[in-house]
């Protein structure tokens, strides 16, 4: 069962400010970028204004990601109590370890809850749950 939304209930939008704007702007263009310190060659998630290793504010850059990763953990939302009312249950939130090493969460859009397993190969895709909102998501990938 693919991910389904319940019409009429807005999906909560990400909080966007100058520290993470490049990320969400890229998602709008269906591009997936990650923040990296070019001096230390370390990736960060969530984004930040300073590299915690070299304390530079200038060496941070946004670089295209392969978009590929593996499911590191996941949660199945099976009951109303914990679920967001705007999304049809059951839905799955996956924690994905990207090839670059950082981990991000999103939904898996094309898998049944019982198909999902730790180690499952996935890649980034995009959807638009409502007008003016583009999200990155994950879909199945051949290993």
């Amino acid at each position, binding site marked *: 069962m693919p991910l389904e939304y319940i019409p009429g209930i807005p999906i*909560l*939008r*990400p*909080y*966007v*400010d100058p520290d993470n*704007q490049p990320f*969400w*702007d890229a*998602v*709008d263009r269906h591009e997936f970028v990650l923040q990296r310190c070019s001096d230390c060659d370390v990736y960060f998630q969530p984004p930040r204004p300073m590299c915690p290793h070299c304390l530079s504010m200038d060496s941070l850059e946004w670089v295209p990601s392969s978009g590929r990763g593996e499911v590191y953990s996941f949660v199945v939302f099976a009951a109303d109590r914990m679920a967001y009312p705007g999304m049809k249950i059951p839905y799955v939130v996956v924690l994905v370890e990207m090839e670059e090493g950082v981990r991000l969460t999103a939904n898996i859009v094309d898998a049944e809850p019982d198909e999902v397993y730790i180690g499952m190969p996935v890649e980034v895709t995009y959807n638009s749950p409502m007008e*003016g909102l*583009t999200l990155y998501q994950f879909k199945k990938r051949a290993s």
Partner: protein
Amino acid sequence: MTTQADSEAPVIPHPALWAVLYRSSTPFWEAVGRHELTLQRCSDCKTWRMPPRPMCPRCQSAESEWVPVSGRGTIHSWVTYPESPHPAFEAPYAVILVELDEGPRLVSNPVGIAPDELEIGMPVEVVFEDVSDDFALYKFQRAG
């Protein structure tokens, strides 16, 4: 990409509707809705509690009674807003601090007193203005 703040402009309620939030204050506002001014007083040591609260700061008693007051007092201080900080209020307007004859003080608005007539010490008495069917505000006019 828009943000949460852009997409959902807040609805601004009339500030009067903010009034009843703490349960301790509910009897006060219910009485005002009936055009009665009552204040909370400690049942044990008879200390006034304004604003209302669940415990007496003097004797730590949790018991209290609601006592009608005269509604008469004097202006203890006042301010005027040359520009309005909120669309519900038309500037210029004045806010007064009234010291009731019984002692406690209430913030309110003057009725029928121009800002340039306001004076510290001016005797005033309470009047009520209905905001909705069961909600009113207490205001003060020159004592007759």
